């Protein structure tokens, strides 16, 4: 059984009288442990698809089967629980809580999962160590470099043992050297922990890290190729 099964997903936005299809009948299947790059120009529907995959948004039509359950018709709070347990997010702008230590940022998903404080602290420290930030637990985001902030975000994404990490332009704000470090981190998470990594990017270099590339254009999938240097 596939980890993710998208069946005829359509997302329609209404702008007054006009209905715009951001996605039209997108069907995809993603297996556990894949490393995928989603590519396409802006307006191609890749961000909309990402939001649906991340359970931040619901499709207008179609099914989204995640680990055997159709989440397309779930309510707000059910989707919140799915996001908490199954999906880790990494954003272009890091999206860490300001004036809050790295440790507390990483603890955040566990706070909403009712993990006791001691365990929370331990898991968060482990996750920070895993991304190479041991010793920086008490630094605030403004005391960390961009690369370090993105590592905190990755630690936060993986701390709840989510099987999927969704990264939206994760290296968009980083220089080339740091981008390479961050991408290596994704690769190791994918290979060592069998985490399914899905990255939205428009950079070819970044897409090179993936084993499968899905191209979007005008709300439809125009290409789906399995290749890459890790095969």
């Amino acid at each position, binding site marked *: 059984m596939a980890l993710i099964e998208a069946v005829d997903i359509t997302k329609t936005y209404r702008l007054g009288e006009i209905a715009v299809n951001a996605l039209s009948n997108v069907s995809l299947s993603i297996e556990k442990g894949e490393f995928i790059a989603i590519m396409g120009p802006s307006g191609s529907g890749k961000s909309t698809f990402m939001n649906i995959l991340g359970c931040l948004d619901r499709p207008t039509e179609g099914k989204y089967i995640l680990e055997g359950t159709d989440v397309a018709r779930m309510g707000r709070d059910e989707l919140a629980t799915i996001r908490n347990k199954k999906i880790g997010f990494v954003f272009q702008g890091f999206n860490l809580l*300001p004036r809050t230590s790295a440790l507390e940022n990483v603890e955040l998903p566990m706070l909403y999962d009712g993990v006791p404080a001691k365990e929370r602290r331990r898991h968060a420290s482990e996750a920070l160590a895993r991304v190479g930030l041991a010793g920086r637990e008490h630094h605030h985001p403004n005391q960390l470099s961009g690369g370090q902030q993105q590592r905190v975000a990755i630690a936060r994404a993986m701390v709840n043992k989510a099987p999927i990490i969704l990264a939206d332009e994760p290296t968009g704000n980083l220089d080339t050297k740091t981008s390479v470090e961050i991408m290596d981190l994704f690769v190791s998470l994918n290979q060592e922990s069998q985490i399914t990594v899905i990255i939205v990017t428009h950079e070819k270099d970044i897409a090179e890290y993936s084993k499968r590339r899905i191209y979007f254009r005008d709300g439809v999938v125009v290409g789906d190729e399995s290749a890459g240097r890790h095969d």
Partner: protein
Amino acid sequence: MNRPGAMINIPSIISISFRALRVNKMRSALTMLGIIIGVGAVIAMIAVGTAASNKISEFISSIGSNILMVLPGSTSAGGVRMGAGTQSTLTLSDAEAVQRECPAVAQVAPVLSGVAQVVYGSQNWSTGITGTTPNMFTARDWKIASGRAFIGQEVRSAAKVCLLGQTVVDNLFGALDPVGQVIRIKNVPFTVVGVLEAKGQDPGGHDQDDVVFVPVTTAQKKLFGTAFPGMIRIMYVQARGIEDMDAAERQITDLLKQRHHIGPNQDNDFTVRNLTQILQAREESANMMTILLGAIASVSLLVGGIGIMNIMLVSVTERTREIGIRMAVGAKTWDIRLQFIIEALILSLIGGVSGIVIGVSGSKLLSALAGWDTIVSPFAIILAFGFAGFVGIFFGFYPAYKASNLNPIDALRFE
């Protein structure tokens, strides 16, 4: 991954709220200020009001319960009406008749008073001399501190005995024990048989303890020679119970009318005053004042609450991205809602506690500096604190509701 995480985790949310407030220390402190001032003002105002009404109720109990006063009536001479008490129309036998014939009356204490110089050794003191009967002390619930009260036998025989109020003792005897000593009033020697307990001032500031009690008959014969024998100035009447006050008033009026031969169309030559009623009315108005002061102070508490709501609303907008991040990592509707409600609640409760401290110390300061009496009642503290908590929940809810309804995608993109 299989943890049953569907439940809202209150301790976690409380710690989230505390973190959020700690991150914005300055804003949190300023928001609290409104509540601190509100709660402090409510407590201080109620403390001032409570002290005022307590003073009056203390006096009510100091004059005794269910007390009526019978005063000689006003006279009219050629159309000019004089004040009450200008003519002496009450006699000792009137008092005895009231005691004997009015069933609603428990006891009567006649009073004939005047001012005189009191001398003991080389000390002298000018004070009020009250001639009365032992009923005075039971009716007014006035305890004897040492010695004894004079007895009926001494009233009948016009014995030269007296009881001293505390102020008189202080001025004549200092630390000496006055019981058994002889003092001179208008050059007449009186043996001190007892000392009364201190009662303090009445609401008019008159010292109730600056008094010497002698038997009414002695006062008539030896001290204040009266125009006609048996005359008294006032009657203190104690009714049997609070519900008998009206009956007693009616019975006394009927009896005295009959004894003084007053026809149905004539003005009474005496007045019956319901002292307890008058004082209770004053107590009620003092209570009213307390409520009014409390209400005014509550307005500031309300304004403080609106302040909290304003800050929380601003902070919902300011923290849109934070809310988006929380939603992305799994915060549910009520997680967000509770966070904002609890933040508001924490602000108002900490503000409430600080307000209590400030209100209580402010009351003390008011007592010390302005000389106002203040009584900080636990009721006022509970009221102010409860109101602060209510304000927190009430004004925290709308911002919380607004925050929880944000769309996670929009919230995450918010700049």
